[in-house]
């Protein structure tokens, strides 16, 4: 790894922290406290299921919103404010800048997820009084959520390398929604005929498959996550994020910074 990438990444992380991005943790903590107390009163026998479902879905949504809304500004804001000029006039390659920004935001999301995970486990402890062996699979679900964040962050960076922040947000959020139904899209493609089949199959494999990265429901029911699935989804997320980053770099390398 280039020696300059960690510096750009740590500065990106510092920007997120100083811009009070981690304040979302307060809202999340309040949500989890409220959910734990409320669920304890209205749910009988399914408190754990409700808390895990609610908690992990909230972790995912909070993170996706942060990934998109910070990710889309990572490049465009630097160009607009011209802070990029004094960075790129140093021995910093454009690809190093993109990759550094990616790792900086990914690091922010991992730290954010870590604190949110603590809140989820505390809520879980509150409703069931003790941890169970199956709770370990919550960690696997959190890991899958982080893999989703890596893809979304890379996509947000990709879009922000050539379009406006607003359009980038629309594109990235649309892909997140479509990707969450990727399995349904593949099912539809299998049933379709002729050109529609080809188009639907192409679209189904082009959009990120977030539905296979969503194991929240099965984990909430205490089901294990297969090691093979963890390995294949890890490889998928890394390859997809790397391709989106390569696209961002290719576009950014050619861009005139007016």
């Amino acid at each position, binding site marked *: 790894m280039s*020696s*300059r990438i960690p*510096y*750009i990444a740590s*500065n990106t992380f*510092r*920007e997120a922290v*100083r*811009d009070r991005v981690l304040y979302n943790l307060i809202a999340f903590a309040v949500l989890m406290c409220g959910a734990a107390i409320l669920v304890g009163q209205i749910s009988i026998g399914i408190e754990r299921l409700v808390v895990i479902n609610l908690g992990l879905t909230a972790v995912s949504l909070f993170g996706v919103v942060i990934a998109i809304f910070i990710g889309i500004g990572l490049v465009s804001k630097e160009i607009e*404010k*011209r*802070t*990029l*000029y*004094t*960075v*790129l*006039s*140093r*021995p*910093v*390659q454009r690809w190093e800048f993109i990759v550094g920004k990616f790792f900086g935001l990914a690091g922010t999301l991992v730290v954010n997820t870590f604190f949110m995970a603590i809140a989820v486990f505390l809520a879980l402890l509150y409703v069931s009084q003790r941890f169970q062996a199956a709770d370990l699979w919550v960690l696997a679900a959190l890991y899958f959520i982080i893999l989703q964040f890596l893809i979304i962050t890379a996509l947000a960076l990709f879009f922000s390398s050539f379009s406006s922040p607003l359009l980038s947000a629309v594109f990235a959020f649309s892909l997140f929604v479509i990707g969450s139904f990727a399995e349904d899209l593949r099912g539809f493609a299998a049933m379709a005929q002729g050109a529609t089949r080809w188009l639907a199959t192409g679209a189904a494999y082009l959009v990120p498959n977030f539905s296979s990265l969503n194991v929240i429901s099965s984990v909430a029911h205490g089901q294990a996550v297969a090691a093979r699935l963890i390995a294949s989804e890890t490889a998928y997320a890394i390859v997809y994020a790397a391709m989106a980053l390569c696209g961002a770099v290719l576009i950014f390398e*050619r861009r*005139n*910074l*007016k």
Partner: protein
Amino acid sequence: MAAIEILGLTKTYQVGFWRKRPKCALRPLHLNVEEGEIFGFLGPNGAGKTTTLKLLMGLVYPTAGSARILGCEVNDPRMKAQIGFLPEQPYFYDYLTATELLTYYAQLSGMAARDRERQVSEVLGRVGLPDVGGMQLRKFSKGMLQRVGIAQAILHNPRLLFFDEPMSGLDPIGRRDVRDLMEELKNAGKTVFFSTHILSDAEALCDRVAIIHQGELRGVGAVADLTSSVESKVEVIWRGNSVPANVKTLAANCHVTGETVRAVVPETSQEVLIDALRRDRLRIVSVTPIRTSLEEYFVQKLKPSEAAAGVRS
């Protein structure tokens, strides 16, 4: 070896949304800047100065032509470790303190960890901000940000400095400090390439200047050589309260003030005017040569209406 070699650098932008049309920001520019000199790049607003600097920094790509800086291609990281750049009206990460910002730039410049702290503190003192290193940049005034901009440009002790409008936003003391700093840099053997439309600064500092207008190079050379090409003038003052008719034909612009008359005429008309005044038995008070300034050369190279709009002296 020339510090900067510009070989036919050209930039054309495509403007318009539906029907793109070309807009030439820089016509083929050929220019050499020697090592160790202070070189002024002059022109009115929108002349193509910032475009040239962005091309040299690799921030925009040329439509045609090329440039070499310190013998390297424009995007060569080895070269970039040896240059410093101050953009026009710089804006920095305002969530950082001045010390944090400069430390970040020192890291990006590849400066050794053991030197960073000392160098950051030294350079803050050098630009007149020794006590505000711990203050967030969002609390800085425009002039202080300009000083931070200069600090980040000289931080890593570069051989060649590019300053885009370095005096912009500075008060008279700040401008004097920057002029002194540029002199210091030159004395230390550095090359300084700076763009400005403040001609008095360029005249006071530069070994050579280039004048650019509408993306086209209009003149380049030492200030003395350029100004010597402009026709010299003399100021003639004589006793009187009106201008004789035969003198009016020689000096169109005469100003009567109380008991004296003042006229500025080309040096070639000086003897004829003096003879005419003597014939009318008018008493000549003084005949003073007027030093030709860079501004006059600049104005000559531009259309008068445009020069008046873009130039402050």
